[in-house]
């Protein structure tokens, strides 16, 4: 009898889970009808919630959640932290979070400006060779100690001198001297060559306490939120820093929950475990009920492209590269693999860069398979050729893009094999050893400079993994980086963009959309032209 009873329990449990399957399907289709229609606008990145205007009234009938009452939120993130030491962290996902904990002498604002942070004032000499920073008097570290000149010099030195190989930031090599004044209030930095972008580089020299050795386990910074605890592959907890020098954060506590599985993130939102998840795919946002969530749309601020190894046959021939550009319909890629969300690009620059971005290059190669075939024939490939696209397999968007490209290139006779590799292999074989034919990835500018996106195509750049080599490009680039006149420099950067497009260095695709699910009642989300999520402006309405 007892055994029969147990059997009964098991059978009913299994039966229930089957029913659940049916229920789930029905509800999802109900919600999908409400998803905003995809529009490919090249608007500024700081636009939120397409179509659905947030009305303050309906908030009344949804009771506040436990976390809203406690003035805290939980954010779901898809990857763990690579390092909590601000000078060692390299993963974009880590910087995105630690942006709230660490600050440099200057920090980025949501409209793409560099604003004073630990320094209250910054001045630049006429010749662009000397920068003077005035330290803000009332800045405190999370451990309560005031920030002194020693800490500032130590932090910059740690990123510059290379004693700690991991912390070394090659861009700071242009510093020839750091001179604090006698009373420890101003720091004069002399450069070996003029640079308009120096502030963007010094931004990444996050200020940490001098000789502090516990950054990995007990990070201390000056940002609006301070570190409380971390459990590997589980969570990281931040708390509002009461002594913050600037506008303090509004939420008392922010918990980041790590869920590598994308289904897990969606389930976490649905179950109420999470309040906010960024970088969702369009089909994931459709699984969420609009009664509970707003979907804000920003842009990822990256250049997604089919990057070609310009040193490898047949891509060493400009006609073949141009043929690829004609053969690939960017809008079709965006429509098929991204549900229409995304901004088509024609060069290594995206709209957030404002004056640097040359919109006219987007349609330089309009979709034209006949032109592609003609160019291929001219280059000696009338019947097409075989090629491989190496993709990092953990990035679903890039894998999906590759699948669309296979079909598009087949139309012009090019037979594509997609080669998925894991991230570590991609880094060492494709990016490091440059052993590849073509690859799909998204390149960003982690210091908000246009230069970052262009510099890597200089023929002797260490990170020029596409082996692009063009004499004119190298000449303009070397002039541009030391140019102190902003207008001149901007014009040169635009020339570089044009050079990349005309020579079809790569097949530029799009700036991917960043879809963020935000629980109703949670307001204040601000998009940055940088891969960061500022939690200090978030609050429960």
């Amino acid at each position, binding site marked *: 009898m007892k*055994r029969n009873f147990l*059997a009964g329990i098991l059978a009913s449990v299994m039966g229930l889970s089957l029913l*659940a399957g049916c229920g789930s399907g029905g509800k999802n289709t109900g919600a999908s009808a409400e998803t905003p229609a995809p529009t490919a606008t090249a608007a500024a990145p700081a636009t939120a919630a397409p179509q659905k205007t947030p009305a303050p009234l309906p908030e009344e009938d949804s009771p506040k959640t436990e976390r809203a009452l406690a003035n805290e939120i939980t954010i779901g993130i898809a990857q763990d932290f690579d390092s909590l030491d601000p000078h060692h962290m390299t993963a974009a996902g880590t910087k995105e979070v630690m942006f709230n904990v660490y600050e440099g002498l200057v920090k980025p604002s949501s409209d793409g400006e560099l604003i004073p942070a630990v320094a209250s004032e910054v001045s630049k000499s006429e010749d662009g060779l000397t920068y003077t920073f005035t330290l803000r008097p009332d800045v405190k570290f999370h451990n309560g100690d005031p920030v002194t000149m020693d800490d500032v010099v130590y932090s910059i030195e740690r990123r510059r001198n290379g004693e700690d190989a991991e912390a070394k930031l090659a861009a700071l090599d242009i510093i020839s001297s750091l001179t604090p004044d006698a009373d420890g209030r101003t720091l004069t930095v002399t450069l070996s060559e003029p640079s308009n972008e120096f502030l963007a580089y010094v931004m990444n020299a996050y200020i940490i306490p001098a000789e502090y050795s516990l950054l990995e*386990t007990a990070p201390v910074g000056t940002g609006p939120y301070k570190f409380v605890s971390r459990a590997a592959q589980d969570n990281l907890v931040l708390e509002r820093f009461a002594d913050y020098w600037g506008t303090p954060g509004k939420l008392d506590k922010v918990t980041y929950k790590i869920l*590598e599985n994308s289904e897990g993130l969606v389930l976490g939102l*649905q179950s109420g475990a999470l309040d906010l998840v960024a970088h969702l795919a369009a089909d994931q946002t459709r699984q969420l009920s609009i009664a509970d969530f707003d979907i804000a749309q920003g842009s990822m601020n990256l250049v997604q492209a089919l990057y070609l190894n310009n040193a490898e046959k047949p891509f060493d021939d400009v006609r073949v590269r141009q043929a690829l550009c004609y053969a690939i319909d960017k809008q079709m890629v965006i429509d098929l693999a991204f549900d229409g969300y995304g901004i088509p690009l024609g060069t290594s620059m995206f709209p957030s860069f404002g004056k640097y971005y040359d919109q006219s290059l987007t349609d330089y190669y309009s979709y034209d398979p006949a032109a592609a075939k003609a160019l291929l024939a001219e280059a000696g490939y009338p019947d097409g050729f075989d090629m491989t696209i190496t993709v990092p397999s953990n990035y679903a968007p890039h894998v999906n893009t590759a699948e669309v490209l296979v079909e598009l290139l087949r139309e012009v006779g090019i037979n594509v094999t997609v080669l998925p590799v894991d991230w*570590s292999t991609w*880094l060492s074989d494709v990016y490091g050893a440059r052993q590849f034919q073509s690859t799909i990835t998204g390149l960003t500018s982690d210091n908000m400079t246009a230069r970052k996106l262009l510099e890597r195509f200089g023929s002797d750049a260490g990170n020029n993994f596409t082996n692009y080599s063009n004499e004119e490009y190298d000449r303009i680039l070397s002039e541009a980086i030391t140019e102190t006149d902003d207008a001149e420099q901007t014009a040169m950067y635009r020339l570089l963009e044009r050079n990349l497009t005309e020579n079809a260095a790569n097949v530029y695709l799009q700036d991917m959309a960043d879809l963020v699910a935000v629980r109703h009642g949670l307001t204040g989300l601000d998009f940055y032209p940088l891969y960061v999520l500022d939690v200090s402006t978030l609050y429960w309405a």
Partner: protein
Amino acid sequence: MKYALKRVGMLLVTMLLVSFLTFLAFQLVSGDPVRTMLGTEATEAQIAALRSELGLDRPFFVRYFDWLCGFFTGNLGTSFSYRQPVWDLISSKLEITLLLSLISFILITVTSIPLGVLSYQWVGGPMDWVRTAFNQLCMAVPPFFTGILISWFFGIALRVFTPGDFPGLHTNPAGALRYLFFAAVCLSIPRAAMTVRMMRSTVISEMNKAYVRTAISRGNDRRTVLMAHVLKNSLVSVVTFLGQTMAELVGGSVVVEQVFGIPGLGRLLVTSISHRDYPVVQTLVVILAFWVVLAGTLADLVNQYIDPRLRLGGAV
């Protein structure tokens, strides 16, 4: 005593072999922990400096021997990607995965043995068809999918637990156990279905044996024979199978931990492999090898208890 020595010896050899093969595998596959740590902005000088700092520029055998010495002296090294001692990283996750496997194992045992016997009694009837179909379904549906169904139904529709919010095992043990229970159900379904099928066919073949015919012809009813004799004889192969199950559950937890967002060893193993975090992977692999050998040994011991014919140690 001889048996115990033999087992311990086998354990050591297995662990040694497995650790060496893992070390070798990492040597052969592409990917580089240093580049993974430093990301896309690394310069060649930085890569070289960090490589020598981590001791990765030394020859293969030197590194393996170094690791081995560390392992036997209790120094498991430091994780590359988490930058903390391997043991600190693993210990809290070990108990979660062990608990998850244990709950699954209990679920499998208490459901599949009675269900197996029950399904024998259905043989030939209409219920047999239903059972066959249901059994096939349970074996075929991947845990990934059942995991989503279970999370959705019990977590989102019924709100019995909150998917994505695993409570701390020490701060909220009851909540953690409840959470693990649902993950364990998901983990045990395919394996339980296999055990049921196996139990059923073993009972069928036992019931056809001569001793059963004799017992029945002497006037015992079928049910008594089944419970008193057949069950015990059928258990030997089922226990062996359950031993394998125990070993396999830890492997199955990789998928389930990801879907349910449980901070266990399975998830750690996957990310450590993708980060080429050798020190962590080495230790995990040795723990898994230990677990597999242990499960086999336990199954042997239980079988020897059930069936005295196996006790002489002949079947080791």
